[in-house]
């Protein structure tokens, strides 16, 4: 810290110049729209009067939008579904990523490069396309994987079907992150462990996994954030069955309010609530997990 400050003093405004583009972009595309959304969330549209309204005007609504949003059972059901989905996707993504990374790191493993690329490849497929593709695999009439025997859009199954698409797309990226962390570990460690008589399994469980914990934590955080923002998969699968409603997860509700019902004000209020909740959750998770990792490291 101290060193940075002295460097700053010596070079004048140069560091500020360097961060300027990032700050400008952040201001233009995050702060400004965020502020605008906050402003919208306190407004509401009213018709001017008469049978057809004769045009509309916006009025200051105070906290009315927030009251409506927080009292909306659709939103809370959506939050519950989002949590259920997250309970599927977060552990599955992180555990599979860790498993694949560890397997790829073993010396015995063959065809490493090819396998790594194959597992990573789904990450490069846009979420909408992946969902459409999986949709075809799930639908009874087009399914080559037994969709006519199993109802992939059943009341419980739908969470796994939607979650599967998300996991399929996300495992590759997380695997690369963890794999890179594994490769960065010094080889002498494993050598001495082997000399001390540790089996490969013990090396993995006692040395490798604990040492890449920071990378795993980061992946968990990314996955949690992705779970909070889930939209593409259910929204794309929606027209394929009766299982997914237009307010199935919170972001779909926001989308439907804003673009389906042209109620940008409710959508803004929901966005603000959701953003606040997401920030809280991620800060708290990060704090808890980080302190635990530090304790374990110490």
């Amino acid at each position: 810290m101290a060193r940075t400050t002295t460097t700053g003093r010596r070079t004048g405004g140069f560091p500020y110049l360097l961060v300027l583009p990032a700050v400008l972009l952040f201001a233009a595309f995050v702060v400004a729209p965020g502020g605008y959304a906050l402003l919208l969330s306190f407004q509401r549209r009213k018709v001017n009067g008469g049978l057809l309204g004769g045009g509309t005007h916006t009025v200051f609504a105070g906290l009315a939008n927030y009251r409506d949003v927080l009292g909306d059972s659709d939103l809370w059901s959506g939050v519950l579904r989002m949590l259920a989905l997250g309970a599927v996707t977060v552990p599955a993504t992180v555990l599979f990523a860790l498993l694949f990374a560890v397997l790829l790191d073993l010396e015995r493993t063959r065809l490493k490069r090819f396998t790594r690329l194959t597992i990573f490849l789904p990450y490069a497929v846009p979420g909408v396309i992946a969902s459409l593709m999986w949709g075809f695999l799930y639908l009874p009439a087009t399914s080559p994987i037994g969709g006519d025997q199993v109802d992939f859009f059943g009341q419980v199954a739908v969470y796994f079907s939607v979650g599967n698409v998300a996991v399929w797309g996300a495992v590759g990226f997380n695997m690369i992150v963890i794999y890179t962390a594994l490769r960065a570990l010094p080889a002498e460690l494993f050598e001495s462990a082997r000399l001390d008589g540790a089996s490969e399994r013990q090396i993995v469980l006692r040395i490798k996994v604990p040492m890449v914990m920071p990378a795993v934590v980061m992946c968990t955080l990314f996955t949690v954030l992705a779970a909070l923002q889930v939209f593409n998969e259910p929204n794309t699968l929606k027209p394929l069955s009766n299982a997914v409603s237009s307010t199935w997860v919170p972001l779909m509700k926001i989308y439907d309010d804003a673009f389906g019902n042209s109620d940008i004000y409710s959508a803004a209020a929901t966005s603000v609530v959701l953003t606040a909740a997401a920030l809280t959750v991620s800060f708290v998770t990060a704090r808890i997990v980080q302190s635990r990792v530090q304790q374990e490291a110490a």
Partner: protein
Amino acid sequence: MSVLPRGRRGAVAAALLAAGLLTATAACGGGSSDDKAGGPATAKSKGKVTLTFWDWDPNIDKVVAKWNSSHPDIQVKLSNPAGGDQLVAKMITAHEAKNGPDIAKVEYQSLPALVSKGVVADITDYTKDTVTKYDDATLKSTVFQGKVYGVPQDIAPLMFFYRTDLFTKYGLSVPKTWDEFAAEAKTVRSKAPSSYLTNFDAADPGWFTGLAQQAGANWWSTSGDTWKVDIADAPTKKVAGYWQGLVDDGSIAKNPSFSPQWNKQMNDGTLLSWISGAWAPAQLGGIAPATKGKWAVAPLPAWTAGDLTTGIWGGSATTVTTDSQHPEQAAEFASWLNTDDAAVTEQVKQINVYPAATAGRSLPVLQAAPAFFPNQPDFYAEVKKVAPAARSFPMWGPDVTVTFTGYTDGFGKALQSGGSFTGALDGIQSATVADMKKLGFTVG
């Protein structure tokens, strides 16, 4: 064609919104970046003007080209930013940014909403002649409280489309009443256990509203400046109960229409019929290309034998927006497009519309069968027979999107988890009324 397949609509929307949803929601006030090339910043009324026109009909460009070649001073520039409900959302956004198009295609059910938001302009003064070319029943969809808000393009009575080959194969006759329809649905299940007479579509509300209209439902009606909302009325409950029975005893399929699953079922003969608008022939070519020449149309089954009354599904008007600097020229184009014999003939040929204009319904082009129905040369004669008996609601509500979302979610949920259709109707009713009150409409 008036209704964009829902599946495709959803996929497009999802694709467009895939990337930056969070910022998109926050920033959508300024979200319309659609460049309006050659917009109305030119001369006031005289001289050459260029009008922008939003329409999603395939091949409409050929009709527009006809106009452009004969009207050098009023050039129309066509673009297709989206279809159906998506276009409504775009029109509202563009209007907020004050750069909407001059002319736009709007489905009847969305028109009151667009008028109430001040997006669509009153063109009464420019359409004095045009309105005389329509019958009153048709005009009810675009004329509210004596003011004209659009020039009707097509009407789409709900009809019964069936596979002639499969009906012969299983010894079925075209059902004249809903009782016969229910009996035949059971016959199909016993004769061909993997096939269904049809499917219940919880995804497209326009389909169900058409059925409710046939039974006599009046979801919205008005007196003075007051709205009456009655979505769970007796006729609608009768229709919902009837279909609930068919779904519960497994007589019909319950997967949504316009999905890859449904396309395959339509193509391979798993589904034997489709209750659809008169625009179906143009759609079927894309949905079930292998079935060309195997379909025929008949009147919708009736609640009492011999009654031709039917509902509508879709149908559109050409509207002028309040952003247009040249409403007079825009209205002139809208009138030409939908009442000029040459223009309407071209529309029938290119888009398979069933014309809304009275004279349009007697055009020689309607003697020919639609391309996908070469086996039924009297196709348009069948449509013409039921068209006068097609009824809509007295008026579509000003927040119909809320109602339609309520239908998709409510009926979808009932099908998914075995809830009741009439319960779903009550939910739609209360959601619709709550939204109208929130917007400030008077609901009686």
